[in-house]
């Protein structure tokens, strides 16, 4: 029997797969086992009646409802900022930008996508410091600021997704508009965007997942452990990932630990669902375009 390096590669690859698959399965199972018992009315609303909690008549003290609301508002606001900007940027990069400008802009996008989220957070924090020193001495970290920084964080994903979706449209579809006498913009609106809309949509869903999970940005820009439901965009707020982080370090009793496990499970289910939606879209997309992987 001669020495066969490729056999070692085979064995090693099985080993590598099990070394990664096992921990991830353990992680998911562990969260379900520990988090499931915590799933109760009290986890979400504490002692507050849910009707009163939802219309905001009574504050929720022990539940994670305010954190869920905070995360939701955060997602919505950052999407409102980032999605149009990202899609426009992507269209510009794919269809208009050329030569030197294109390479500059795409370098900026690469740079942005490489930025650690804590640096985005630090940027928001610096912005507030700057505003205080100059015109607005009352400026403070808030939901608004967090949303803006999160928007900056997910912007590169949106830009790249849009750009790639547009650039991978097959030639024959791309030439359809011009052959009918469409202008460039008409071609984009009536041909290119509709035919890449599913891909762009899946990019949007993915980036919402990012917005929901990020902790480092909001830590520096306005999240707190106990804020209740934010009344305005200039309020401080609670968020699911931060609740998990905070309770991990600071839980004082078993109840709070339970709450941590419950929130972790809720967050995992949330991001998992978003991932699943995007995955299904992409799967159908592949069948549609026959793009291959």
């Amino acid at each position, binding site marked *: 029997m001669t020495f066969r*390096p*490729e056999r070692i*590669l*085979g064995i*090693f*690859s*099985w*080993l*590598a*797969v099990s070394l*990664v*698959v096992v921990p*991830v399965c*353990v*992680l998911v199972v562990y*969260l379900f086992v*520990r988090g499931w018992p915590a799933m109760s009315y009290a986890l979400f609303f504490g002692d507050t009646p849910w009707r009163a909690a939802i219309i905001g008549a009574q504050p929720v003290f022990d539940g994670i409802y305010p954190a869920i609301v905070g995360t939701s508002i955060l997602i919505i606001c950052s999407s409102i900022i980032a999605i*149009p900007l990202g899609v*426009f*940027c992507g269209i*510009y990069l794919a269809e*208009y*930008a050329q030569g030197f400008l294109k390479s500059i*802009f795409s370098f*900026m*996008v690469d740079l942005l996508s*490489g*930025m*650690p*989220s*804590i*640096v*985005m*957070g*630090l*940027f928001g924090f*610096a*912005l507030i*410091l*700057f505003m205080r020193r100059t015109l607005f001495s009352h400026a403070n970290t808030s939901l608004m600021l967090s949303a803006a920084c999160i928007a*900056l964080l997910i912007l590169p994903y949106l830009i790249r997704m849009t750009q790639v979706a547009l650039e991978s449209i097959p030639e024959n579809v791309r030439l359809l508009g011009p052959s009918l006498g469409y202008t*460039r*913009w008409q071609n984009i609106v009536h041909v290119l965007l509709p035919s890449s809309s599913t891909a762009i949509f899946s990019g949007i869903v*993915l980036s919402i*997942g990012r917005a929901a999970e990020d*902790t*480092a940005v909001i*830590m*520096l820009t306005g999240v707190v452990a106990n804020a209740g439901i934010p009344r305005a965009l200039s309020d401080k707020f609670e968020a699911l990932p931060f609740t*998990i*982080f905070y309770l*991990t370090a600071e839980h004082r009793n078993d109840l709070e630990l339970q709450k941590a496990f419950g929130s*972790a499970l809720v*967050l*995992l289910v949330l*991001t998992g669902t978003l*991932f699943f939606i995007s*995955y299904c879209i992409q799967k159908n997309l592949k069948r549609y375009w026959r793009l*291959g*992987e």
Partner: protein
Amino acid sequence: MIEKWIERALFSSALLCSLCVTAVFGFLLYFSWPLFLDARGLANVFSWVWKPFAGQFGILPMMAGTFSLALLALGIAYPLAIGIASFTHGLAPARITKTVLGLVYFMTSIPTVIYGFVSVFILVPLFRDYFDRGTGFCLMVSAITLAILIVPTIMIALKTEMNQRSEEVCMGARSLGLTPAQELLWVLLPCSGRGLVIAAILGFGRAVGDTLVALMVAGNAPVIPHSLLDPIRTLTSHIALVVATDSQDQAYYSIFAAGLMLFLIMAGLTMVIRNLGNRFGQGKKRHDIPS
């Protein structure tokens, strides 16, 4: 002309994005600028001692922490990612491959805070009891957790590259009678050289940029690690910790310096990747032109 206006609007959105990046850099520079004017301040920040109450604000231990953690995590994750990429490239039956790929993509959607969270409750007690030294919050635990976190990043980058290369060489290799494993080892991996480098850099960048895992399980002691069981503090978690505790002005300078460091590291990595990618692109073009 409406077309012209639309183009201008699109252009300005691209410009706005670029301005944001410039603004991030600008603010970091603006707030750490006072340090660069004062040689003593600079020496203070770039020193090995972090004792804010004694007026010493050195961030070098955090640099050491960041690099040791990122390199260690990369060292664990990189072979694993190569193993998985090979696995999904013909070493396993199609159905298992699909499941594994789906799982790896799913891993990208698991929040960082959850990796840290589970690690705190499983890995940390395990290390504490097994090694019976310290609290269990240490370099090794955070490196393992971070490795699991960056495996999908590396593996997806590798896979993209290998898929592309595979189209070029697959038929040739098969017609010579190479098995999938032989093809991988002797043809596919050697000719995805740049992809291997790019994947490593992406993984390294992800590890350097991560905050939550380091913050939750690395122990956060601002000292230079001497063993794998020592606690460490990274640049990222340093920023989070200092902002969380209201500190003096000098401390703020040091976190902006830390932020600037992170920015420069990432910008450097991005440039290396672009450079590699460009040269790579040219190589491909040359191949495409029929001669």
